[in-house]
């Protein structure tokens, strides 16, 4: 069986490209506002990677446009001169999505950070792509509204990046991902046209192109305005941290919660190493030495929340929880979350280097998958910390290593890859929310067959026939991934008849 179809190869084939010359630089300088052009080598170097520092490419130019028109003008120049371009928000991506392309340019949206309008009655806001996720909630907080998707990086990552990655967070178990909270996009196509996708309501006529762009990781064009949906702050919120003697029992508690018909706003799990790192970073009051902890949050109408909160505690106790801490007030609650949200970044406290992995497993396989990960970690002699959105089975193993020890980085990378492949084996997916980017493009063949990939490539080519918009990301480049990186095997869910490929 082949990995790629002929059509796929043609669609993703690298096309001839232009070069960033002094003349091109001048043309770009003429269409962006002063200070919007970065061309000194030392400065360009600082853009060579995002949150995934293992891959680095220095761009030929960085442009920081101030308006949609400027973005469109720059993209038009790129299209005319066949210069590849890569959008960049805050550069917190963990899959190398904003990794520049050699001889290409980076279009940074960090200067487009205005809240354009807030419609309180209809619970909507129009924002520029460089506004941070938390910035939206902060700006509308006075109206008792907020933006629900809450990636852990929310204080820094941009809404543009969230749209591109279809980011989620602890609370997406109940509230869904970014795509569930974006109504419309102003979008610059790879030939420089400005179009609107979606509309003011969630009900669309015709194909939902907004949904196609959501999660496309910057490969279809550049988002320059976003109409987001805002939610009312829930009447009541209750949060607890429950310690467990092992991850398996914590996992069982999660399954019991769901089986009991409770839809928590969030269920997060941390293991011993993750707890240690969080505590070192923010002293959030987690129990050091506890093998596993669950953070459970309920929100909604007061009476209902109170009643369910009792049941949650009972379920935790039934599953051998050793200690339950209830956040007494909003300050303590914020602390619990600050600890959880700092988890990845805090790994620096317990290890010089780490890989963040992102995989999904069916919730029921939680305990057994964690046991397997521990065995693999022991075999490799590398520590693995686990933090994850337990409610929806989105696993974030963090492989800890020391780059200064020769060979350890490679070893860690292998372990990290083996772990995601384990997720697929368990019937899950190679990414929950961090995207495919550069990092996992080659792993796509583990999940998708030749026809799936061809359909994806067709969609991409329909938007970007010249292949200039964030090339080399998401879809595997056969030449770079090795022609045969292991045969395609049908996805377990497919074999089980749960999903079907069209």
């Amino acid at each position: 069986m082949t990995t790629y179809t002929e059509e796929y190869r043609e669609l993703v084939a690298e096309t001839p490209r232009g070069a960033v010359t002094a003349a091109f630089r001048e043309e770009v300088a003429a269409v962006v506002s002063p200070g919007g052009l970065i061309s000194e080598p030392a400065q360009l170097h600082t853009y060579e990677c995002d949150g995934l520092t293992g891959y680095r490419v220095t761009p030929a130019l960085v442009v920081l446009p101030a308006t949609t028109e400027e973005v469109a003008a720059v993209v038009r120049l790129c299209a005319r001169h066949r210069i590849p371009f890569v959008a960049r928000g805050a550069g917190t991506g963990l899959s190398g999505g904003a990794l520049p392309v050699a001889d290409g340019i980076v279009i940074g949206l960090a200067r487009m950070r205005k809240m354009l309008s807030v419609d309180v009655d209809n619970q909507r806001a129009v924002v520029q792509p460089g506004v941070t996720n938390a910035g939206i909630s902060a700006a509308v907080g006075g109206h008792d509204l907020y933006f629900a998707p809450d990636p852990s990086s929310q204080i820094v990552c941009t809404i543009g990046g969230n749209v591109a990655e279809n980011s989620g967070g602890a609370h997406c178990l109940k509230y869904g991902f970014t795509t569930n909270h974006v109504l419309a996009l102003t979008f610059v196509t790879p030939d420089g046209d400005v179009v609107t996708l979606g509309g003011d309501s969630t009900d669309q006529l015709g194909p939902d192109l907004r949904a196609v762009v959501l999660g496309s990781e910057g490969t279809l064009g550049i988002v320059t305005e976003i109409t987001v949906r805002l939610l009312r702050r829930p009447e009541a919120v209750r949060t607890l941290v429950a310690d467990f003697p092992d991850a398996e029992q914590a996992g069982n508690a999660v399954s019991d919660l769901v089986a009991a018909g409770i839809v928590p706003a969030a269920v997060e799990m941390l293991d011993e190493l993750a707890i240690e790192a969080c505590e070192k970073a923010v002293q959030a009051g987690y129990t050091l030495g506890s093998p596993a902890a669950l953070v459970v949050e309920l929100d909604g109408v007061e009476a209902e929340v109170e009643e369910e909160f009792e049941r949650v505690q009972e379920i935790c106790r039934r599953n051998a929880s050793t200690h339950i801490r209830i956040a007494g007030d909003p300050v303590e609650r914020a602390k619990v979350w600050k600890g959880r949200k700092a988890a990845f970044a805090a790994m620096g406290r317990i290890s010089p280097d780490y890989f963040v992995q992102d995989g999904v497993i069916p919730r029921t396989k939680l305990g057994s998958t964690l046991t397997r990960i521990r065995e693999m970690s022991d075999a490799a002699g590398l520590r693995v910390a686990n933090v994850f959105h337990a409610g929806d089975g989105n696993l974030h193993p963090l492989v800890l290593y020391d780059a200064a020890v020769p060979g350890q980085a490679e070893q860690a990378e292998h372990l990290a890859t083996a772990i995601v492949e384990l997720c697929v084996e368990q019937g899950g997916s190679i990414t929950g929310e961090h995207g495919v980017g550069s990092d996992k493009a080659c792993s796509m063949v583990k999940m998708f067959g030749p026809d799936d990939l061809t359909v994806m490539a067709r969609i991409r080519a329909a938007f970007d026939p010249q292949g200039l918009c964030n090339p080399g990301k998401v879809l595997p480049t056969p030449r770079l991934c090795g022609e045969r990186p292991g045969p395609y095997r049908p996805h377990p869910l497919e074999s089980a008849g749960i999903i079907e490929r069209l």
Partner: protein
Amino acid sequence: MTDISRDEDQRVSVQPVAIGNGAGVFDLHHPPSDELISDCVHCGFCLPTCPTYALWGEEMDSPRGRIYLMKLGKEGKVPLDDTYTQHFDMCLGCMACVTACPSGVQYDKLIEAVRPQLERNRRRSLTDRLFRGMIFALFPYPSRLRVAAVLGELYRRLGLRSLLHRTGLVSLLPRRLQAVEALMPPAKLRHLATRTPAVTLAVGTTRRRVGFLTGCVQRVFFADVNQATVRVLTAEGCEVVAPPTQRCCGALSEHAGREPEALDRARGLIDAFAEVEVDTIVANVAGCGSTLKEYGRLLRDDPDYADRAAAFSAKVQDVSELLAELGPVAERHPIEARLAYHDACHLGHAQGVRSQPRDVLRTIPGLQVTDIPEAEICCGSAGIYNLVHPEPAEELGRRKVDNVLSVKPDALATANPGCLLQIRRYWPGELPMFHPVELLDASIRGVDPIAAATARSGRPRLDARTAEPGSF
């Protein structure tokens, strides 16, 4: 004035720059350490609190970008040229990134390693050197400052100032001199003759014997803050010793990377306090206090001073830390007002002292202490930053003022004279501004300076903008 050429003294005898010696573009005298650099995991959590990133949204003017530039420098991948150094010059040294970083990256140590490297290994333009030379020949010398203050007062009183402003002539001055002109605080001439007594006895039982750093700018322009500090400390049972031989602590020099000068001043201050037996050394200026706490590290290479410096640093406390620790004994009288508290970066971020000043202020009955939005972002004062980089400093100053305005305070308190001058410069009207100890002092003495100031000028004009509107 021999000091103008002090720039040259910033060169210490170290091995010359040579790519391939392991330090890249840096020399071997404490280059930024690889270990500290590699602590950064490139997560970007520090970006939103960095004032320069807030202004320009550029990676190389963010903490993450600056650390990346250090790494590139260490690897010898970039030249140590103007482009390279400009991004470190633009850093305010506010240490907001240290507070924000979940990985515990010690940016303070990193930037303090880089600045002296740049001072040594790169030549600034002539005007830049002259201007900096002037600053460092003036500010650390109370005697010279007093002369400048008298001249400044004459300039004001003779109507020269209003003439220059009325005619618009002031706009012909270079931006940096305009900044000096605008920031120069009015000196109360009677204060110029004030000196803190060498020893002031505690009121009642002596709970602690403390050494007191009188500061240089503080001593001349904010002598009343020093007097208030001594009164409050003694009222709370401290015997206050202020060695008259003390001179500048070297904070300004250290923050600007003028290492040899900073070290000399540190040694001098340690000597000045060597004579007196005290349990605690108190600073009431955030910028000075944070440097005093660093003496141990600054003088780590000096065999004669390393131990003494470490012992000295261990004794240093901000006045609010000490007061919070001692707990109140003197009776407080009410001050009915809404007070905005501004965290000076060198107190909040650099020393981690946030709750103590608030707690101490809350011992005053009737005083409602509120926080300011975006409290973590620097006001742009940052040592001499607002003098050498007036444009970004102005943007940050206006941004801070807008945030203070939004909480509609009756008065503002902050523990750093630099912040006070900076905020006052962009404040659209009159706002009573205090060092926290001044309010404590007033409360202990039973006076209400906020009511008095408000009565003098009517309600603070919160909406009337005398200056051009902020752009945020």
